[in-house]
Structures are given as structure tokens and as C-alpha cells.
């Protein structure tokens, strides 16, 4: 295979010298009207420059060194059959070109998509962080407003303690007065009752006395005795006077 490739290369080389001198005068005739227009005169130079720039290596020396070493290595590998050029090379070339095209064209696309995703995540996380700090700050403000609540609560508690004490005393006094009032009413009622009883007794006594006197008055002997006593009294009075 290597020999066949070499044969075709040699064949191509044999073809080319006959092609090149024929092509060159045409190129010069083509080049001269181009030369007069002026613009594309920079074109071959920039193209050559870009080709040289695309080679690996930093300056001209390293580029030539790398090129020559790559050429030497490939010739060594091919001639010693370490790398055999067969149809696998075609497969390799096609696969590598597909991979290279994907990386070159898909690479920036993927990077853009990846950056988009990471920016989205960053935005979400940052906004969440801002929201959370905001919420914490408002909570701090709210709680700060209530910082005086301790003293207020203490005074409120003292006041309420006093109020409770006073209420207890007032309740006690109230109970006491209620008790006294109740006792007074009870005593009053007793007193009234006693006076009622005494009145009744007096009335009864008076009634019995009057009844006895009336009964005695009905007795004629008593009437005669009273009459005699009254006449004696009147004589006594008349005699005195």
C-alpha cells in the first residue's frame, strides 16, 4: 500500500512539472490585470500568513521544526509499517473530520447553552439569596421594634400585681362590710321582734287589767265599795278645803 501511494505520488509529481510551467504564464497574465486593480494584491500574502499562523508553534523556527519532525515521524512510521495506510485511514479521516467539525461548530453553541444554564442558576440562587436577606432584614426590623417590650412587660406586670393586691383587699373589705350589714339587719330584726313582743305583752296586760276591772265593775259590791271610797275622798277634800 505504501509503495502504491509512493508510486501515485511519484506519478503525480511527474505530472505536475508539465502542468506547472503551462499554468505559470497563465497565472502571470491573470495576475497582471489583478495587479493593476490593487486590492487582491494583499490576498496571497494574507492567505500565506494565515496558513503559517495556523501551524503549531510560536515562531518560525519552532514551526519549521514541528513540521519537519512531523514529516519525519510519518515517513518513519509509514516506511516501517507501524502505521499502514489502508481503508481504516479513510474511516479514521472521516470520523476525525466529523469529530473536529462537531467540536468546532458545536463547541461555541454548547458553551453558549452551558453559560445560559449556569447564568439561569446563578440568577435564581442570587435572587433567592436577596429575597432571603430581605425577609431576614424585615424580620430583624420587626423584632427590633419589640425590643422595648421587656420593660413594658415588666411594668405592666408590676401594675397588674398591685392591681391584683388592691383588688384582693377591696374584696376583703367588701366582704367584711357585707358581713357587718348582715349582722346589723339580723340584730335589727331581733330588736324589732323583741319590741313587738313587748308591745304585745303590754297590750295584753292592759287588756287583762281592763277586763278585770270591768269584771269587778260588774260586781255591785265593788261598785258600792268604789262609791263609798269616792264619797270618802270627796268629804276628805271638802273637809280640807
Amino acid at each position, binding site marked *: 500500500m505504501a509503495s502504491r501511494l509512493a508510486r501515485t505520488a511519484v506519478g503525480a509529481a511527474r505530472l505536475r512539472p508539465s502542468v506547472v510551467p503551462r499554468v505559470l504564464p497563465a497565472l502571470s497574465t491573470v495576475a497582471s490585470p489583478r495587479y493593476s486593480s490593487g486590492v487582491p494584491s494583499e490576498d496571497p500574502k494574507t492567505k500565506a500568513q494565515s496558513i503559517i499562523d495556523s501551524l503549531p508553534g510560536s515562531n518560525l523556527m519552532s514551526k519549521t521544526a514541528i513540521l519537519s519532525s512531523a514529516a519525519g515521524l510519518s515517513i518513519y512510521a509509514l516506511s516501517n509499517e507501524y502505521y499502514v495506510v489502508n481503508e481504516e485511514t*479513510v474511516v*479514521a*479521516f472521516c470520523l476525525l473530520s466529523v469529530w473536529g467539525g462537531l467540536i468546532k461548530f458545536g463547541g461555541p453553541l454548547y*458553551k453558549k447553552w*452551558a453559560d445560559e444554564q449556569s447564568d439561569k442558576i446563578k440568577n435564581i440562587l442570587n435572587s433567592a439569596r436577596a429575597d432571603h436577606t430581605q425577609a431576614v432584614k424585615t424580620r430583624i426590623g420587626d423584632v427590633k421594634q419589640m425590643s422595648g417590650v421587656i420593660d413594658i412587660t415588666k411594668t405592666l406586670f408590676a401594675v397588674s400585681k398591685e392591681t391584683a393586691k388592691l383588688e384582693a383587699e377591696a374584696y376583703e373589705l367588701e366582704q367584711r362590710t357585707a358581713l357587718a350589714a348582715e349582722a346589723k339587719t339580723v340584730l335589727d330584726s331581733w330588736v324589732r321582734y323583741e319590741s313587738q313582743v313587748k308591745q304585745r305583752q303590754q297590750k295584753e296586760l292592759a287588756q287583762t287589767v281592763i277586763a278585770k276591772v270591768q269584771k269587778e265593775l260588774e260586781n255591785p259590791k265593788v261598785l258600792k265599795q268604789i262609791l263609798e271610797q269616792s264619797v270618802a275622798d270627796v268629804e276628805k277634800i271638802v273637809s280640807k278645803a
Partner: protein
Amino acid sequence: MSTLSFNNISTEVLSPLNQFEIRDLLSIDALGNLHISITNIGFYLTIGAFFFLVINLLSINYNRLVSNSWSISQESLYATIHSIVTSQINPRNGQIYFPFIYTLFIFILINNLIGMVPYSFASTSHFVVTFALSFTIVLGATILGFQKHGLEFFSLLVPAGCPLALLPLLVLIEFISYLARNISLGLRLAANILSGHMLLHILAGFTYNIMTSGIIFFFLGLIPLAFIIAFSGLELGIAFIQAQVFVVLTSGYIKDALDLH
């Protein structure tokens, strides 16, 4: 491989199937008939697993919450397979199968992609590998179904809303199609990868013969070369799609076994 000699130049006719040959790398002949060896398929499978673990280790990004481009790829892979598992199997109880499905997907994808690299070996093009996987998966799903539903598992073979007269025939057909699941799952993957690689190889052989016949043919051979490049792109797409199809079908089979549709 056959050799023919013409004018003392002997060339070997390389068959396009040569790329799938299994060769011993290191072998031990132990205990008489036992031939223990590290073959190239084992080597490439190990390289695939190792490669995946290295990629995962490299894309950890110091456990940061915000991701760089490396970890986004892993996260989006996780999210893709998570969505497959959640949508195909039960959204709540199906998560227990997630590591297995993830491993399957990664295994098939990485091995397909390693086969895409020039001068390497496609392990998933071997029928034994894919059949072992698919038989294991369908058998496992069947055992899962029997464990969960008992003998009611056979109601899977009765499609919904079928007339009673056609029932025996339908059950037979469903049974045969259930058995065919074993083979179809593995065969699909292996046949796709195998055919892709073989076609690539055959076309490349023809193109190589065209391009080395002469200088005019060299430029004429650029047309099939462009076609081969397009086909390689298709192969790359097939590598991803076959992995995804395998995983989606596996999830579907597990759901069938768990839910009895």
C-alpha cells in the same frame, strides 16, 4: 482473512468483519481446560467505565452550586435520564430503578462512542453482550412482575378491550411478542452498531481503492468521501439514539411488569 499473491506482492483481503474480532491480550491457561484471558473487548469495556468515572470526577467543580460547562453536561445527562425514568415508570415508586437505568444508558452510550473512535473496538456490536443485557432485563422484569402480582401477572398478555372470542389467539400473539422482547431489545442495538460500522468499513474500502488508483480518481473519490463523512455523522447520532431507545424500552418493560398497564 485470505491471502492472495500476485507478482510476488501478497496482499491480504481484509474482510470488513475483521474489526469485530476478539483477540486475547493477556491470557492464562489455568487448571487444564480453563482459558482465562483479558480480551480486547474486556479491555475496551474497562476503558469505557474508567473513562466515564474520570469524566465524572473531573466535572465535580469543587462541589459548587453554580456549574461550569463540564458539570452542566453531567447534570443535563442526569436530568435527561431522570425525566425518562419519571415519565416511563411510576413517578414516585419508579425512582428505585434509576441507578440501574442510568448505568445502562451510560454503559451503552460510552461503548457506542468508544466504537466511534478510529482504530478502536465497538463492544456493543457483539450480540452476546446485548443479548445478555436484554435477556437479563426482560427476565428481571418478569420476575419483578411475578413477585408483585403473583399469577395475576398473566393479565399483561390480555390487551385492554378485546372481544372474548378472540382472546386465545390474542393471548398467544401477545405471549410470542413478549418473548420476542428479549431478542428485539438486544438485536436492535447490536444490529444497528454492527451495520453502521460494517457499512463504514465497506464504503471506506471502496473509497480507498478509488482514491489510490490515480490522481483524477483521487479527486473523484472525494464524493464518496463526503458521503462517508455524512454517514459518520449519522453513526454518531445513532450511537446516542440507540442508547436512549434501549433505556426507554427498558423503562417501558419495567413499567409493564409493575403496573400491568
